[in-house]
């Protein structure tokens, strides 16, 4: 099975994250940039499917030059190769334009299965899988907590508010996964060394046949007008329980009219 895994480089969600003051895009310069955590589960799932059914695993990333670090990190887990869509004109692209670019790249890769995380930790927008499926005219099985591959039939358990849905489709398809689906492997030393030699193909907008005016800030379908930091919460009252902590808690709740 030919599997493509979408990987996004994001600012570390454990650090302070900001929007830039000049063009209102995500500040990737000041934060530590890492693989979107949810994508690691997609990589793991791809590797498990390859181990069971054979095939090839390709990482697909759209991002600036420095996303190369995350691509190598992804490859060190075990995928075979990577494709990096990189072009200065992409800076500030909205989700609609991003889906156009990634769909064009996927069109060249002939994937049976496109795997990705259910959301990125920076935008948390969750729209890419269905946008790609819509553009490519293929199925989207999203929010999977379990994926079963049987020949060309894919079946997922999709987590919902009330429980789960069992959803099935034939390949080719896009499948997005939650972090309950597996436990991603750590790259081995051998994997890290091997990743340095794995092929990484770069593609520009021209290679994909997408015009620069359709993407980036100029081609964006939405715009940020302004942004500000919320004032951090300040700590309130802290008491140490000396036998009446529970009662004190309820007294506080009563003054706030919750009891």
């Amino acid at each position: 099975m030919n599997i493509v895994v979408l990987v996004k480089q994001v600012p570390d969600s454990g650090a302070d994250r900001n929007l830039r003051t000049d063009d209102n895009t995500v500040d990737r310069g000041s934060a530590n940039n890492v693989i979107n955590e949810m994508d690691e589960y997609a990589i793991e799932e791809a590797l498990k499917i390859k181990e069971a059914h054979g095939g090839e695993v390709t990482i697909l990333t759209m991002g600036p030059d420095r996303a190369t670090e995350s691509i190598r990190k992804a490859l060190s887990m075990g995928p075979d190769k990577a494709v990096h869509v990189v072009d200065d004109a992409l800076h500030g692209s909205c989700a609609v334009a991003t889906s156009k670019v990634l769909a064009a790249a996927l069109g060249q890769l002939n994937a049976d299965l496109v795997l990705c995380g259910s959301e990125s930790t920076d935008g948390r927008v969750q729209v890419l899988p269905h946008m790609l499926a819509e553009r490519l005219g293929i199925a989207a099985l999203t929010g999977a907590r379990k994926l079963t591959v049987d020949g060309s039939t894919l079946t997922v358990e999709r987590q919902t508010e009330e429980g789960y849905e069992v959803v099935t489709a034939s390949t080719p398809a896009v499948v997005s996964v939650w972090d309950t689906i597996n436990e991603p492997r750590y790259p081995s030393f051998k994997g890290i060394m091997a990743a340095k030699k794995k092929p990484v193909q770069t593609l520009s907008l021209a290679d994909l046949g997408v015009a620069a005016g359709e993407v980036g800030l100029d081609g964006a379908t939405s715009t940020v007008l302004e942004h500000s930091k919320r004032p951090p919460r300040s700590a309130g009252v802290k008491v140490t329980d000396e036998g009446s902590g529970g009662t004190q808690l309820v007294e506080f709740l009563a003054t706030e009219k919750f009891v």
Partner: protein
Amino acid sequence: MSEVLVVVEATREFGVKKVTCEMLTLARELGTPSAVVLGGAGAAEALSARLGEYGAEKIYAAEGEEIDGYLVAPKATVVADLVRRVQPAAVLLASSQEGKEIAARLAVKLDNGILTDVVALAADGTATQVAFAGSTVVKSRVTRGLPLVTVRPNSVTPTPAAVTPTVERLEVSLTDADKLARVVDRVAEQKGSRPELTEAGVVVSGGRGVGNADNFKLVEELADLLGGAVGASRAAVDSGFYPHQFQVGQTGKTVSPQLYVALGISGAIQHRAGMQTSKTIVAVNKDGEAPIFELADFGVVGDLFKIVPQAAEEIRKRK
């Protein structure tokens, strides 16, 4: 005034979700609200009273196996056809997994911008969003097409404005591309009568400090006494204490209730990301240095197995 389409979110068990009433309330500020019901046979009839109570002048209904038997795509096709026909002033969906997914397909079908996790929307189309785990407030707008936004639960106070809606049945004409992902089963998991996590006014969450799955009864008991939902930290979910759909945090649900009670949760950034926009936060933790106390309006340092039963008893006394 022009129509504002509100795509209805409802559950099989409890009917119209609160976020739908919030969206109808918001839609009334922007134009004339029309509710779009997409579901199994009989959905519109079951939901119409509640939708009318919150001001839906019109209900568009697309029902049946064709809508309900496949994932997301048929719903997006129906809404896209409707948008092209009625040219609404805005389209509002819930910022849930499915709401965002329908919106995603609409954005591509209509070549239209999309804004998610919106907490306010002005009449001129300017939306307010919260980003980076509630640390940043963003004002933004769609610059191509109409305002297509997904609204975060607990953003608007739902207020009734009763009308008697007219119901229009929609013709559903789907292509093969809409029927690629077939729903073959729906399985209900433990939930009981508690409010849904993202919509609840009160959320009581347990963390690693709760110790084991059995002890979560204590968290549930306090939640029930306060009429709230139960949540869990990632550490508690990863340890198998509580199911994943109740996880609050960066890789789980984002909640913004009136009251958030954190029991045995240290308050790692992963967890704070999902709850720090809650109005009032209280915490119980044995470690007085736990970062959760930096956010808490009221914190008790001590043994939750002593403090929580005492609090439960005190609430019962006051009832």
